[in-house]
């Protein structure tokens, strides 16, 4: 056995060992980083799944408020609500006019407290409508209230965006 050969082989073997060890260290570090990344992604998946479960109640709320309905369906629903409120509070709806986009001008007449109660009742309407620009004429307990109703509706893009 030649000493030079022995020394050379040993050197080669040591170099290979060092090379493999450093490569292993690099691979282990990368594997650790991957494991952490996978854990973070699993966590994100879990939170996404819980968000998906809450989507059911959100969709139910959207259907309940007719937010994704067509404007025509919303008008019908809104007018039905107004008639129901008017009948319940003994308030007369004297005009119902469609203005621009989702805005409707409504005029109601009735007793002062009943008219106020009718306005408040809109907060329980089947359609999410916000009263604004109220003109309130009050004389001898009789009131004529003219107000604008802005009906809230999801945009076309979001209304048809199906969520699991």
């Amino acid at each position, binding site marked *: *056995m030649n000493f030079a*050969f*022995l020394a050379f*082989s*040993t050197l080669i*073997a040591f170099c*290979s*060992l060092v090379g*493999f*060890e450093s490569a*292993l260290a690099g*691979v*282990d570090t*990368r*594997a650790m980083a*991957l*494991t952490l990344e*996978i854990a973070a*992604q*699993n966590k*994100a*998946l879990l*939170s*996404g799944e819980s*968000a*998906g479960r*809450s*989507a059911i109640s*959100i*969709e139910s*709320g*959207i259907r309940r*408020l007719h*937010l994704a309905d067509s404007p025509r369906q919303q008008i019908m629903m809104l007018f039905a609500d107004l008639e129901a409120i008017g009948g319940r509070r003994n308030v007369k709806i004297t005009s119902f006019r469609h203005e621009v986009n989702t805005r409707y001008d409504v005029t109601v007449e009735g007793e002062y407290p009943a008219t*106020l*109660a009718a*306005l*408040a*009742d*809109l*907060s*329980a309407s089947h359609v*999410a*409508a*916000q*009263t*604004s*620009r*109220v*003109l*309130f*004429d*009050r*004389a001898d307990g009789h009131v004529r209230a003219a107000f604008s109703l*802005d009906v*809230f509706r*999801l945009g076309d893009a*979001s209304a048809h*965006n199906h*969520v699991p």
Partner: protein
Amino acid sequence: MIGVDFRNRGPAEQVQEAITGLFVRARTFRSGLIVIGILFAFVFFEAIRLTSALSNMQELERQRDVLRIKVQNIQIQVKAISDRRAALLAALERRRSNVDLATTIAAASDLVATSMALTQLRVAPGGFEVEGRGTNLTDIRASLARLESMFDGSATFELNRDEMGSSAVSFRFDIVRK
């Protein structure tokens, strides 16, 4: 380097020396082989470990890629859910504001009506305008002061007295919501 000097030796001695030398060479060769064998066994073992670690890393990368795609899809869905939740909450808030409006009208008109005959009340986002007629200026001013304290806002008003002594009051009241 192991060598045998055959000079000045007998044949038997030379043979013995030669055999001994061979044995020595064989032992050295075997020892060298063993050392190199052990070293290369380590190298082989390390190579197996590295191969296994690389394979493991590739599997992890594959899992990571699959999860990344799933997470991206989930994030898109979560964004859509979040947008729809925000829209639903905004709709509920707008619907609820009708009660606030009715309460505001009731409070303002009741307060003003104690000192003047209220003829008109316009409510718009951020405040309201009231028109009315009254005779007692002190009461009217007291009403406006109470309005200011109730709604935490400020009133700007005009007052015109007619021949009959009645005061026509119109004012703008800007609410600062508490």
